[in-house]
């Protein structure tokens, strides 16, 4: 049964492990409440910093506060969703080091599902909530004539952005099969990437914008689709259809990350401890 429907088995296993961690989190309710509020505030403080900036200026890189809020909210929601579903994957290096990774290999659940659900942290709803609030505020205040297709386009942007971040989490975890201590490198692309995407692309050097478009295609998380929504020019002068490529880029990246994960898992050799 598990062999015939590997995806279903994976999702079932994922749900079981997640449910276990949620129960365990609820054992310390005060801590859960504090960490959820903390998670909400942690990402919120980034936005407070932006508000403080805008208390001195009217536009940053030619973008108004509402437009920055749209960018900020979109990437925060995307990162929040990816972070909630598989944000603890960076613990895999620790598991490899202390030998507990072997336990995961003998359980009758796909390893990726177990690692993704490991230490599932419900408090990360805080970041999603905060991102959604700012996104909502941005959507309400930008100078865009909202239509149903534009609304759907925004939803697709957030979901495919989450998938792009998810593939970075998976690739980062796979990388740790070779470099078990390098957990922090992926923070550059997830949290660092999200910090980058909060600001308009006009702020950054063209080489940097090129890098996050063609090398690590984070620009598809929110920059390219949001620029289209706002009726702004593409900073690299790319053709218009590129703005709609988010979902395809996400699928491609997920496939790539999945393959990398397979290669990493195959090359894993237990320390024997």
């Amino acid at each position: 049964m598990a062999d015939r429907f590997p995806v279903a088995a994976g999702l079932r296993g994922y749900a079981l492990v997640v449910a276990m961690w949620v129960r365990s989190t609820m054992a310390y309710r005060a801590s859960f409440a504090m960490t959820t509020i903390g998670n909400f505030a942690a990402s919120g403080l980034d936005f407070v910093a932006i508000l403080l900036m805008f208390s001195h200026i009217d536009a940053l890189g030619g973008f108004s506060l509402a437009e920055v809020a749209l960018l900020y909210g979109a990437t925060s929601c995307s990162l929040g969703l990816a972070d909630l579903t598989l944000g603890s994957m960076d613990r895999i290096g620790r598991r490899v080091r202390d030998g507990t990774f072997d336990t995961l290999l003998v359980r009758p659940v796909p390893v990726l599902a177990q690692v993704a659900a490991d230490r599932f942290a419900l408090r990360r709803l805080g970041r999603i909530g905060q991102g959604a609030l700012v996104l909502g505020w941005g959507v309400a205040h930008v100078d865009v004539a909202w239509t149903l297709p534009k609304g759907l386009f925004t939803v697709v942007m957030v979901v495919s952005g989450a998938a792009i971040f998810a593939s970075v989490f998976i690739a980062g975890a796979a990388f740790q099969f070779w470099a078990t201590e390098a957990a922090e490198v992926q923070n550059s692309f997830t949290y660092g990437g999200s910090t980058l995407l909060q600001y308009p692309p006009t702020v950054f050097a063209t080489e940097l914008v090129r890098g996050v478009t063609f090398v690590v295609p984070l620009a598809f998380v929110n920059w390219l689709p949001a620029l289209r929504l706002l009726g702004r020019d593409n900073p690299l002068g790319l053709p218009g259809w590129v703005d709609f490529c988010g979902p395809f880029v996400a699928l491609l990246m997920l496939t790539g990350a999945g393959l990398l994960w397979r290669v990493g898992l195959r090359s894993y050799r237990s320390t024997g401890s």
Partner: protein
Amino acid sequence: MRLYAAVAVSGFRRYATYRVATAAGVFTNTVFGFVIAYTFIALWDERPHLGGYGQAQALTFVWVSQGLLAAMALLGGGFQEELQERIRSGDIAVDLYRPADLQLWWFAADLGRALFQLLGRGVVPLAVGALCFELALPADPLVWLAFLLSCLLGFAVGFGLRFLIGLCAFWLLDGAGVNMVSGLMGMFFSGMLLPLTVFPGPFGATVRLLPWAAMLQVPADVLLGLHTGAGLARALAFQAGWAVLLLAAGRVVQSLATTKVVVQGG
């Protein structure tokens, strides 16, 4: 004294062992440095002399803050989680039986860590920043010396705070919540996100008096040469004042907490 020196050395060596992790951290700090530097360029283009900084000074602030982030444990890390785990598991009883003072022991160990991270994670980001951007780094070695002294005092303030946070576990058992709140305060009120001089009005004035200001804002301003003569003495005294206050509070809480410890046999 020799004991605590040995503890500090082992703290240094413990963190020096993980070279890949250090390199990964340096990489991340550098990436963040670039992102924030570009946003600051845009901000200071709009408003030159914002917060009393020129653009070069603002960029220096960015790279100094990325360099000090790990050493000052501004976002958490350091030792308090380990201390909390020892309190939760009961291993703290063993620590209290040792012929060493709890606070001094952790101070020494954390100082060793901070020294390593100042070198291992501070130097490279600052150097990369200096290569890629026009920074306002001082040429006078005395200013650098004052900066290091200010860093040491800033570390003592940070340790004082984190020791208190760690001891919370005696009452709360699970420290995740307080750690998070403490990390948030550290991130926002130290000036990591935006220099405290840019914070507006009375709010800004208040924030600049809080202990977190002693951990990043004051050392950075000392390096930028904004404090000289009597001003420098005042800035260092501000840091020393918070350090003494927090370390003393740590003593009091420690003695309260240890009376709570009940060692069960078996």
